[in-house]
């Protein structure tokens, strides 16, 4: 009965009446999920705001120990990956499989590049002892008494964000495999759209993190 309305190419779940209903539900669900993600990061943004207000001098001083050029590189990388996601969806609409594959592969590559840059940044901080809380051992920084809080918040925010990037990479690997298996068509590419929405959110959060952490003035 379900397939009366749905085309053969569209895997319609049997509790939905029409493909539109299924796709719309998926999108609404994803938007709600993104809302919860924003609120999850919201807690950290509020902590950031509180401590930035309480220890403004410390934050100004400590942020100099981040390399804003690496942050900027990562911003560009993520922005570019958002573009490739959009292109992948566009290719799906046009039913051009090789373009979908190329664009998803580029997105994954960008994700990995982002994490690689993060790895460089993190290892520098580990060597310099710029670590959260009681692990903070850096002696060169002026006013070290509260600097550990800045690095605590830095690691929490970028760590949680990096974790989301890793999950995003996983999602796109899965989407790549499904594309290769010819699961998607111009009729049905909802998972691509949903994965794309998630990736855009990860991107947007970074766009807030970058100036807050790297460009304090």
């Amino acid at each position, binding site marked *: 009965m379900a397939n009366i309305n749905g085309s053969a190419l569209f895997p319609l779940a049997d509790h939905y009446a029409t493909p539109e209903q299924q796709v719309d539900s998926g999108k609404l669900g994803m938007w709600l999920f993104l809302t919860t993600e924003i609120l999850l990061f919201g807690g950290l943004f509020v902590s950031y705001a509180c401590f930035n207000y309480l220890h403004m*001098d410390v934050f100004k001083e400590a942020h100099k120990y981040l390399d804003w050029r690496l942050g900027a590189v990562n911003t560009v990388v993520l922005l570019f990956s958002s573009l490739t996601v959009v292109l992948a969806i566009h290719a799906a609409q046009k039913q051009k499989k090789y373009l979908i594959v190329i664009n998803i592969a580029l997105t994954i590559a960008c994700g990995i590049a982002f994490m690689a840059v993060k790895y460089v940044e993190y290892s520098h901080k580990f060597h310099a002892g710029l670590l959260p809380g009681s692990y903070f051992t850096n002696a060169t920084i002026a006013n070290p*008494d*509260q600097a550990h809080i800045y690095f605590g918040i830095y690691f929490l925010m970028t760590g949680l964000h990096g974790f989301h990037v890793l999950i995003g990479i996983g999602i796109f690997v899965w989407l790549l495999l499904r594309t290769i298996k010819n699961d998607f068509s111009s009729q049905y590419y909802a998972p691509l759209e949903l994965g794309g929405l998630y990736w855009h959110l990860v991107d947007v959060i970074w766009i807030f993190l970058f100036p807050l952490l790297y460009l304090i003035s």
Partner: protein
Amino acid sequence: MENLNELLKMIVPREWLFSVMPLPSSTHANDLDLLYWFLIITCGILFLLVVVPLFLIVVRYRRKTVHQRAESQKDHNFWMESLWTFLPFVYLAILFMWGFLQYLGMYVAPHDALELRVIGQKWQWSVDYPKEEISVAGVGATIAIPINRPVRLVMSSQDVIHSFFIPNMRVKQDVVPGRYTTLWFEPNQLGEFPVLCAEYCGDLHSNMLAKVQVMTDDAYKNWVEEQKSQNQNVPLPELGEKLYTKLGCVACHSTDGSIKLAPSFKGIYGKMEELTSGASMKIDDNYIRNKLLTPTKHTAKGYPQIMPSFQGRVSERDISGIVEFIKSLSGKQAIEGG
């Protein structure tokens, strides 16, 4: 409000008035009990307004036969619904204003209040009398205060959050590590009243008790003398003076008004100080505390930020001592100036 108070005393027998809440023993308590009784009576009426009709309706419209139909299917009445939206609003607005104004009165302490410093730690209260230069501490410690005189407590915690609660005085205030909180009250009953910890603080939370002993002025003076003669603890200002040299404050801060690398302590307490950030702040307990623990936060204009942090090196009592010491260097000037 006095009239209302009298009226209430006529409606509610006196022994009742004092039986629901513990014996009122401060000026707060008298005001607060009036509001409390207003709440009990009005909420009681509201409760009856719901429950009596509920009971009558259930009795009157109970289904007697299996096929009995509802007498009416009326499902709205604009005026009724507006009424029970609007009237609660008015009632709650009154309560809000009353409660808030009373709270403000409980918040702002009179200037002539006797000031005590309270430190909470697992699981005892210690109280310092800076002026009298005595201190009491320990489980079940007796905190003596004179009757009919406002008392202001400046409190901080050594470890976790506690809450200083005297039911008879109707005051309660959380005692938080890392900051000062205050409360005040004016006792108007002689006697001994329990002090409890109201914020869960671990194993012996329910044993963290002390008592407030409200005395006549003469008895209080005698008590102070008695304590002085037997008190082994160093009084706060003296402790502060010792730390002033021990911690090295003396290198940058003078006590005679001369300028070294930092502002002199003389007369600084209570002053508005201009900061490097352009803002200005009053030098008070919290300012001194922050300066000791997180010196980079604020720096006085015209001075370099060279002060180290004393985080972890000073105890709560030490901080209180330093504050009292700085205060003692300003006491005279403040009075002459004002």
